[in-house]
């Protein structure tokens, strides 16, 4: 997921007044995430620090506030997560892994930090090349898929992370893209969807990663778009939200994975966008309060009330916040920057 250039969507929203995106509380919520060192939870989630930064930063960009986190400190932190092998870990001192390496590259691309990577990056050859080599070395050259790290777990999530990172680095030629595409094709199921490995059940998160990788490789033509579009459109439940697999509960994070997947195959109109928008907006905690006390309530401005949850009334987190906002952007919600589904 990244930003696309060009003007944001305009036009009036057909939603009721109390269901609007509370932009300022969300910005404050994201800014407050790094100041929670007095909470045990902060330390227990260190393994997500780098993705957390990526999610927060993306959300801020979509909200039109790209400078709400300081650029230099962001770059310093990202570079402090790099290992000697060129890959990145979740936080300083954590082992390198593809998922975090991809997040690091995405952040650096977003804040225009490749220059700093060139001058200060670690690994063989240094700079972008070291990162590209780290990623490329994780490809299984006989099957085309990728391992997450030196310990060998393979999953289509890693394949997407690799191609995404390499395409941002403009180093796709370091890997065998055709083999990777062949591998994805071997993960296709009768319902048009994709799983984590050949034989695995279709799953919206895995479908997103496979379509993302195919988009980067410019090979969406291998997808059975009618079957897959049908399966994906059936993820929308009567409450308006989307689930990840048949007969599971709806969840805001799938609003992103499913709707961006539909967008990548040109079938976003196969779900009800306004019902989905309404569902995502209901997952903002401030909306609950609005419903209780009316739209003029001061609590709306309380920074702790920002953030989006998986479902209405649940705990918010930065993960669901970014996917909720990205989903809204994809659906053309006014005032947000446009998002690239890949």
């Amino acid at each position: 997921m990244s930003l696309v250039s060009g003007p944001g969507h305009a036009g009036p929203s057909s939603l009721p007044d109390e269901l609007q995106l509370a932009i300022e509380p969300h910005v404050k919520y994201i800014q407050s995430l790094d100041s929670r060192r007095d909470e045990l939870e902060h330390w227990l989630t260190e393994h997500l620090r780098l993705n957390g930064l990526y999610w927060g930063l993306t959300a801020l960009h979509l909200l039109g506030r790209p400078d709400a986190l300081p650029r230099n400190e962001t770059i310093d932190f990202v570079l402090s997560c790099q290992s000697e092998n060129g890959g990145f870990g979740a936080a300083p001192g954590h082992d390198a892994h593809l998922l975090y390496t991809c997040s690091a590259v995405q952040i650096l691309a977003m804040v225009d930090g490749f220059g700093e990577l060139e001058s200060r990056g670690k690994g063989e050859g240094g700079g972008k090349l070291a990162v590209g080599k780290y990623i490329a070395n994780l490809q299984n050259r006989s099957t085309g898929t990728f391992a997450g790290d030196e310990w060998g777990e393979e999953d289509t999530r890693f394949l997407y992370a690799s191609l995404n990172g390499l395409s941002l680095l403009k180093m796709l030629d370091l890997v065998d893209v055709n083999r990777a595409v062949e591998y994805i094709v071997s993960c296709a199921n009768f319902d048009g969807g994709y799983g984590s490995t050949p034989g695995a059940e279709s799953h919206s998160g895995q479908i997103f990663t496979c379509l993302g990788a195919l988009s980067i490789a410019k090979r969406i033509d291998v997808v059975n778009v009618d079957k897959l579009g049908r399966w994906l459109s059936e993820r929308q439940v009567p409450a308006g939200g989307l689930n990840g697999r048949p007969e599971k509960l709806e969840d805001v994070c799938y609003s992103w994975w499913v709707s961006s997947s539909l967008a990548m195959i040109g079938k976003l109109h196969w779900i009800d966008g306004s019902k989905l928008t309404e569902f995502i907006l209901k997952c903002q905690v401030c909306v609950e309060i609005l419903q209780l006390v009316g739209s003029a309530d001061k609590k709306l401005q309380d920074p702790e009330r920002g953030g989006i949850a998986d479902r209405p009334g649940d705990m918010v987190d930065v993960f669901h916040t970014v996917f909720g906002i990205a989903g809204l952007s994809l659906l053309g919600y006014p005032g947000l920057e446009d998002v690239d589904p890949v």
Partner: protein
Amino acid sequence: MASHGIARPAASVQRTEEQLQEEHRKIQEYRDLEDLIRTKVAERQYTVEVLNLTSKLLKANPEYYTIWNVRRRLLIYGLFSKSSDSSSPSKVSPSTSRIDTTPVSSTQPSDSVTTSSEASNTALPDPSSQNPGKNGTTLDLIKADLEFLFPIMVGWPKCYWLWNYRLWLLQEANKRLDPITARKLWTQELTLVGKMLVRDSRNFHGWRYRRIVVDELESQHLQGTSMVEVEFEYTTKVIRGQDGLSNFSAWHRRSKLIPKLLNERGTDDAGRRQFLDDEFDTIITAMYTDAFPYAQSVWFYYQFLMTTLTDSVRHATITSNFTQEDRIGYLTRQLSILKEMLEDADDCKWIYDALIEYTMSLSQMEQRQLDKDETEDCKLWLSKLRVLDRLRGGRWDDLDKELSGSRALVQ
């Protein structure tokens, strides 16, 4: 940081001084433990004592993947080797392992965005110092670790790192133990994953793990033979169990096992026909019972069966030697069954959706356009779909265009 299904308190709760202190004490304890492990690993203390420290940390935070990696290195570079007097070389050596000794500062709560890494790496452990180990203590270590993992997995059934680490342990068993001993371990995994799937019959980690364990048990190096019959039986059992009909995971697995099952049975054409008939019977009976015509899992499995007839690349799965006439016959029969079904469930959108799809498939198979009656039927069914399923209006619009444009032709 990514929470699911946890209710948010109505307003932010102000913590008392006492609570703050308690939280601070917990943070300190956690970070001290983290520091201790990193220090000892930096000193290359690959000992049971350090292993136990990682156990303590991982029980508190099983998502801490770096500590799982530390545990792997403790076993590979220390404990497995010590536990054995064998000297035959290991077949596989981990590629680029490194022990990261970056100290995590615990003295001041500095802003992590400004913390710069002072990662310094110790020299790589010599891979030749690894030792394949012998059945004695290596086996005990692996067994103990598998046991250690189980309660954590029950508590965190969706944690990728746990399943992943478990598989790694078993692969180590393959490398270091004799095949019979390793096979015993893998066999027990089938029971374990069965238990995990009883707790959550849709856990896709569990289903994936099950496939991997079965592949392993079938493999030559563990002197295995095909398990497709018992696995197929397993899906039957799950589907017949509680909420089994809406278990898409089980239906999916079934769809993947069928080609192999029929090939191994050496089923002839008549047998394949019978098999397909039985599957159709099962699924249609399921649709008529327990109000299941509205559950989508069953309909997706129905779609799978139909694709073996309509979809040129799927023919091999069940109906390898079916002629075009055979397939047209089956399709026609299914269309009349679907129409019959409408009599009891005229508010079931899945039936209308299927009727349109397979009416169009039939005309394509017969290389002709939809006739007048078919077109009218499809338009009627489509109008029902628009009323019954408003969420997917965009799809019905596209279908409408397709019908109006008579594009249901062989292209």
